[in-house]
């Protein structure tokens, strides 16, 4: 059984069909990429899977369970975490707080236990902090944990956003253009970082990415979207040699990039 399955999901905004009958299957420990020109509907597909948008049509199954129409926080607690195309950190808060917040969904104590610092809460808080610090050390942000998150350089902000998503204990991690705005060196680091966390956290990864270097290097399967329609899917090799894709996307993007 696939870990995540999208069945004919469609998203319409007024007259615009941003995503049309999109089908997707993610199997455990795969890295799957979603590519396509700007405005193709990639982010919209993410938003439907993570519950930010409610699909106009179609169903989404996670571990065989229908999750269509659940709220984003419910979907995250089930084990699907994400990052955003335009970084959405909690800007005024510290790096550590950003990660701690992602731990909150596992807090069992109620608000009174938290206010009056009762033992169960204190235990949870302590373990939450040590776990978060450990995670930040792992992703190489340990030294910056008390910095304001918006003061981090761009690349580190991206990394923090991934760390924050990891803190929710996901089974699937969705990355929306993680290498956007990075230079080749940073892109290379990111690629190995993604491979690393996949192994370390036993993840399945679904990512949107424009850098072909990243996509072709690490994905098992690639989906290509154009004007909301899936025009191709297959292995990196298949996609590279697909005429439709070359016309719709690769040709254009090589000139762009």
């Amino acid at each position, binding site marked *: 059984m696939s870990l995540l399955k999208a069945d004919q999901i469609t998203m319409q*905004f*007024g007259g615009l069909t941003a995503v049309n009958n999109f089908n997707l299957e993610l199997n455990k420990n795969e890295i799957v990429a979603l590519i396509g020109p700007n405005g193709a509907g990639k*982010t919209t597909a993410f*938003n439907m899977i993570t519950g*930010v*948008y409610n699909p106009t049509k179609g169903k989404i199954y996670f571990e065989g369970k229908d999750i269509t129409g659940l709220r984003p926080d419910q979907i995250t607690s089930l084990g699907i975490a994400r990052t*955003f195309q335009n970084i959405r950190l909690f800007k005024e808060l510290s790096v550590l707080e950003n990660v701690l917040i992602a731990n909150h969904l596992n807090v069992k104590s109620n608000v009174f236990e938290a206010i009056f610092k009762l033992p169960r809460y204190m235990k949870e808080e302590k373990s939450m902090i040590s776990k978060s610090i450990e995670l930040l050390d792992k992703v190489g942000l340990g030294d910056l944990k008390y910095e304001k998150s918006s003061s981090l350089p761009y690349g580190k902000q991206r990394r923090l956003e991934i760390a924050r998503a990891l803190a929710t204990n996901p089974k699937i991690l969705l990355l929306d253009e993680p290498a956007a705005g990075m230079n080749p060196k940073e892109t290379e680091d990111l690629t190995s970082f993604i491979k690393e966390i996949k192994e370390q956290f036993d993840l399945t990864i679904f990512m949107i990415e424009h850098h072909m270097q990243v996509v072709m290097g690490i994905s098992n399967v690639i989906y290509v979207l154009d004007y909301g329609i899936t025009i191709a899917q297959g292995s990196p090799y298949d996609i590279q040699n697909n005429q439709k894709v070359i016309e719709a996307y690769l040709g254009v993007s090589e000139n762009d990039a």
Partner: protein
Amino acid sequence: MTLDVFLQHITNGISLGSLYALIAIGYTMVYGILRLINFAHGDIFMMATYFAFYGVVIFSLPWYFVFVFAIILTGILGIIVEKTAYKTLRDAPKISILISAIGASYLLENLAVVIFGGRPKAFPTPDLFNKVVQVGNISVQRLTFIIPVVTVALLFMLLYLINKTKSGMAMRAVSKDHETARLMGVDVDKTISFTFFIGSMLAAVGGIMWALKFPQIQPLMGVIPGLKCFIAAVIGGIGNVTGAVVGGFILGIGEIMLVALLPSLTGYRDAFAFILLIVILIFKPTGIMGEKISEKV
């Protein structure tokens, strides 16, 4: 209730609704262009009545001259409010802008208390408006007819302005997206000022007719009508001028009918608008004629 009584109530409802509509238009226009509740709008409405009052009573000028003058003066006041309270905050967090709006509203009210005095003043009504007309079995003040006619006429003029003129096109462009409008060569600041000018002048017309109908003016008179008219704008679909008018009528007629049909609830008349607002926000947050906008993520 006999048919005559019913018609009498409906006439009153339409008349009150027209007044709400005129004020609601100003809210909707400003919201459309700045995504901001102009809390000071109700107070601009109040200021208009004082301008007219002083023109007639103190300077004893002819009323038609005074009314035109007061309307223009109110339009300018609208521009001043925009320039001082909102312009510098254009990129500020929403909460700051809202607080500034509330501050501007309070400032106007308190200035009015200081300048005009806190005691209510009797607004002079020219005889022309006061005559009672007999239609069948119902007798109506002439003003009750004049108000809806003026409102509808102004609505059509405004729709023409928005849809058929260059300034109107600029307004529509700015309401879609400030940056894009700027790139297309629209002077955004001027367009926003123009919007405040028009919206405030309409509020002035509403205010003066309000004062003719309920001839007592005081510095806080704009607060409750202001809130209600914002609600009318939300009911109609905020950002939509025709919607604001529809919302105004619904609210005006609804209020009068509530009191007429359920006299025991008279005390709750002022709560009616808020209850309607909450019901609308829950079931159709975009109002009757508003477009759905979902935040892009």
